């Protein structure tokens, strides 16, 4: 019993002492923050002045006169607002002041948030050493978030290793992140084949395969229509649904047959994607299977089918009106709801 009492006194005294220390630390920090805010203002003023007078020497003097952390953060924010000649001018001044090297060090030694930010800054600053630093981060950093950020930055710099290697370095846990979608969307056209190869790998993570297909559909266009048509029959529902969505964007000669089969798939996500694609492509020959989907047990499928019928124009609308006027059923209710969608009369 005495121990409970004594330990409690010790712990509470200790906690109060630590708090006192933190309060004193905060007082000192308030002074430092105020100074940093002034320096930031000074740097931003110099940057604005540079965009008007292009006085690189004056800008460099200010950059070198403020602490590196202020120069890095305010500098990055500012260059993200600039384009063209002005941006290049500022970048040259930053390089001459050695900012990329400082950012490179931050990528090695900062905390996780600083390292992610450093990767983004290196992509924007684009120095010669940036690629080496980023490759090292992709190789060795213990945080998957930093490794993903490094991969995205390398992609922007045109120096991303082969996709399979990059994904291995990111690790399996990182291959569930939606940030990969961002990475794939930044892929240069010349490397689309890598995305295609990865999307067709049956042993790859379905999420990553689907993300690769989405990226190809958004940026790759019609050249990959055959490829999407092949993947639409994939055993993985996630991959099949992504391929069907892609087909809906590109179209394909065999699309009606592929979509008709997909509309009978056991997975509701695949059926939804097939209905969406049919509507987007305006395939009126699929009106019958779409009508069947109007009785699907999943609302999402029924709604996609109804919208697809609507987008077929008059024949689809007529079918919907027939269904809405029929006996009470799932398809009747869905049809009347979709026909009524919009501002009330």
């Amino acid at each position, binding site marked *: 019993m005495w121990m409970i009492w004594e330990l409690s006194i010790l712990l509470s005294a200790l906690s109060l002492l630590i708090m006192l220390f933190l309060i004193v630390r905060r007082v000192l920090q308030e002074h430092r923050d105020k100074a940093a805010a002034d320096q930031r203002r000074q740097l931003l003023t110099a940057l604005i002045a540079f965009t008007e007078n292009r006085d690189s020497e004056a800008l460099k003097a200010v950059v070198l006169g403020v602490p590196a952390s202020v120069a890095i953060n305010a500098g990055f924010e500012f260059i993200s607002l600039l384009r063209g000649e002005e941006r290049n001018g500022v970048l040259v001044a930053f390089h001459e002041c050695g900012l990329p090297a400082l950012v490179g060090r931050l990528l090695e030694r900062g905390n996780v948030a600083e390292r*992610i930010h450093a990767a983004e800054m290196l992509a924007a600053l684009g120095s010669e050493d940036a690629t080496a630093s980023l490759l090292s981060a992709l190789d060795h950093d213990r945080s998957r978030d930093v490794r993903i950020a490094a991969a995205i930055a390398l992609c922007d710099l045109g120096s991303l290793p082969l996709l399979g290697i990059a994904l291995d370095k990111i690790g399996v846990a990182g291959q*569930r992140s939606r940030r990969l979608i961002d990475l794939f969307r930044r892929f240069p056209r010349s490397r689309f084949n890598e995305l295609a190869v990865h999307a067709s790998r049956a042993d790859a993570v379905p999420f990553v395969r689907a993300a690769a297909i989405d990226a190809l559909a958004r940026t790759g266009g019609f050249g990959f229509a055959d490829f999407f048509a092949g993947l639409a029959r994939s055993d993985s529902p996630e991959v099949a649904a992504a391929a069907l969505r892609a087909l809906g964007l590109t179209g394909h000669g065999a699309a009606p047959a592929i979509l008709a089969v997909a509309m009978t798939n056991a997975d509701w996500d695949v059926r939804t994607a097939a209905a969406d694609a049919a509507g987007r492509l305006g395939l009126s020959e699929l009106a019958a299977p779409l009508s069947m989907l109007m009785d699907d047990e999943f609302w999402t499928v029924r709604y996609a089918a109804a919208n697809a019928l609507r987008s077929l124009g008059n024949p689809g609308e007529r079918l919907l009106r027939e269904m809405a006027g029929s006996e009470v059923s799932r398809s009747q209710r869905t049809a009347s709801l979709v026909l009524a*969608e919009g501002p009330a009369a």
Partner: protein
Amino acid sequence: MIADWSHQIVLAATILSWFIIGAGLAQTTIYLLQLIFAGYALSKRPPVARSALLWHRYGDVAPPIALLVPAYNEALNVVESVHSMLALEYPNFEVVVINDGSKDDTLQRLIEAFKLTKFHRPYEEALAHKPIRGLYSSPMTERLFVVDKENGGKADAQNAGINVCRAPLFCVIDGDSILEPDALMRAAQPFIDDPERTIAVGGTIRIANGSKIEAGRVREIHLPRRLLPLFQVVEYLRAFLMARLAWSSINTLMLVSGAFGMFRRAEVVAVGGFTKGSMGEDLDLVIKLHRHMRDIGRKYRIQFIPEPVCWTEAPETLSVLARQRSRWQRGALECFFRYRSMLFNPRYGRVGFLGFGHILIVDVLGPVAEVLGYILIPAFWLLGILSAEYLLAFTALIFTYGVTVSVCSLILEEAELQRFPRARDLAVLTAAAVIENFGYRQLNNFWRVKGWWQYLRGNQGWGEMTRTGLGGAKK
């Protein structure tokens, strides 16, 4: 004979005292462990990135979100609240306001302010709720939908919102709360980083009393000037930064606050949505999600992240606070007994052992044991039945460990997040963290025991939650 009786009395008193001290010791041990887990989790978390960076980083891949805002008699603030929600910094979201049969002119105010017109929107009737009288959209913004329905309570309104919304994620928020502009972006982060496993995310609730509020935004952060909300600031720090972060770090988070929580719609629909008429509908939902995911054997994460902030108004009077705390207690008891089969059930793993064990010790036994202790331990000591050791141990568990836990929560906040803007605020909060253990804590336990009593008597009323309105806070 008398000696025999007195021996019996001493034995009974000693056993009772051991129970009281044992319960206190168990509670304190849990709190200290939570502090360790929370400290570790915070040290592992990347520090807060600036909002502009988040947008730059996640803007293109952020999933659509529906913001569900149940409103009942909120005519005073609803228009300003909706304006502030529409101005949130997120690329793809819609605001669904659910007018839950308000008796005042909440709906009329919305119709006038946003030029609402009736609109037909097909939706899945996946969850049961009171009939919807009409849906409204605004020509001023595509982001706003208003659902006008018959009164059915908060859970009922939220279920209607879940039915009507189309986004894969929804975020629930109280109509009178204020989200920080980047709160959605921050709360969505786990859904971006781990979209397959993340099914729910809770953010921090902070107390806005005393802060400067303009146009539905917290412009300057100040501490409350009244003692009662000031103590609640410390309490919320303990609840969010210590308890929730700790449980979240081991995937045993049992509560995502109904005032600000983000959920994946499919899983919430699968568990039947919010339980209507529940006193603790937020706790109830999270328990159901745990149970469902473990029953179907799927990997999942229910996370708390401290960075997204929702500001709320804390009760400033004893009577309103008492009603709120009794209701929370009833909610905890109701959920504990409703899902009691999960307690120490190996099928539910750490949720059954740690999560439910925590509710048992802290919410079910805790208040009763503590209030009994206030009465019995000093009485036994005064009567000479117990030695001073017992009294000291009880005092330590209630007061000095209480101070330690509260101050340590503040240490976590300052060491990792630093959200209180001035050093002076920290000094005031440190003082509050000490003082609240002498009076406020006891009152709270009294209200919780009252909640126990109300639960046993089957009292299901919510009680009136009188608010002065956040717009009425310091300007």
